[in-house]
């Protein structure tokens, strides 16, 4: 093994595996140049280690320190339920605002449809009215016909009773006249004779 085949700095830095480290160590014991080079590296490292670590002038702030406590809006922003409530409130406000400030073109755009609906409603109302009038007229005619029938029946019945009464009255009058004639004959026979003679 020669000087160019070994990684002296890797050996010095402790980066070689066991086999390479052993081979490098053997070479260094036999090579003055590599031995001197290794000594210079060690001196360099010793010099470097004289540079001490400094104490930190101020401890690093913990995330739990007050300086990292979130402000009120940050706390709200990071809170899931609060953000959900805020979102719902914002959505409600947006709906309200939209309701109060609905743009005119939306109404214009829906005018033909509204007119069509109104036309249909008028046509339906007119048909309903026609049907109602027709039915009412039929009903009126039917009632008038039935009333006329009733009146005719009542008049017929009245006339029948009137005729019956008249016949009955005539019969009664005729009976009274017969009775009156018999009575007059019974109380005045001369008159009867005179009457009979006169009749003769």
């Amino acid at each position, binding site marked *: 093994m020669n000087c160019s085949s070994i990684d002296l700095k890797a050996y010095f*830095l402790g980066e070689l595996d066991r086999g390479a480290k052993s081979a490098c160590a053997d070479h260094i014991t036999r090579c003055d140049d590599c031995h001197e080079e290794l000594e210079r590296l060690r*001196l360099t490292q*010793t010099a*470097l280690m*004289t*540079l001490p*670590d400094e104490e930190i002038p101020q*401890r*690093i702030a913990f*995330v739990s320190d007050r300086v990292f406590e979130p402000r009120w809006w940050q706390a709200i922003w990071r809170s899931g339920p609060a953000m959900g409530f805020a979102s719902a409130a914002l959505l409600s406000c947006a709906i309200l605002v939209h309701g109060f400030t609905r743009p005119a073109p939306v109404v214009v755009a829906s005018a033909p449809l509204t007119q069509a609906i109104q036309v249909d409603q008028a046509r339906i109302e007119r048909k309903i009215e026609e049907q109602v009038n027709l039915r009412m007229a039929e009903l009126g005619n039917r009632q008038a016909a039935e009333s006329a029938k009733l009146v005719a029946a009542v008049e017929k019945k009245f006339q029948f009773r009137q005729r019956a009464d008249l016949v009955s009255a005539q019969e009664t009058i005729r009976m009274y006249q017969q009775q009156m004639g018999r009575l007059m004959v019974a109380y005045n026979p001369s008159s009867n004779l005179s009457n009979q003679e006169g009749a003769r």
Partner: protein
Amino acid sequence: MIFREVEDRDLIAKARRGNVDAHNVLVSRWEKRVYNYLLRLVRNREDALDLAQDVFLKAFQNLKKLDDPDRFPAWLYRIAHNEAYSLLRRRKPETDLEGVEPRVGGSASRMFPAELTLAVDTALGRLSPDQREAVVLKIYEGFKFDEMAEVLGCPVSTVKSRLYTALDLLKETLAPIRIRGAE
């Protein structure tokens, strides 16, 4: 170390379920290492502290995306790496980061008063950010090559190339200093 890893895994599992206390313990355990890693990259205390704060906040927010708790260190340093390079790009938007000459002297001189420490800091400052980060991850943080590749988002071969070049540059500067100092 084994017990520490087991405890970290438990803490990560709890933190993934939203346990803030577990996350706080994790922060306490890792804040110093992450801060020093960032300090060696950006070379400014205030920036490093701000970045470390951002790193742990992002880690808390994204911990559920971490599939394997055993990869937590590399994952955390990956966040730190991204934060640091985001800052460096903002600072030098018109300059290629590979060619950035790190800031030395000034506040860095006041950071480390000892002569050797100053020399080390200066030598590290002369490295490119990529090279310096490779050294920091390997020498100071003790990551393996594959973990470094995960943190840096590049192949292991690239990691080794950056690290070996950086070690050569540092060796030229620091080893002679030590030798002269020893004499």
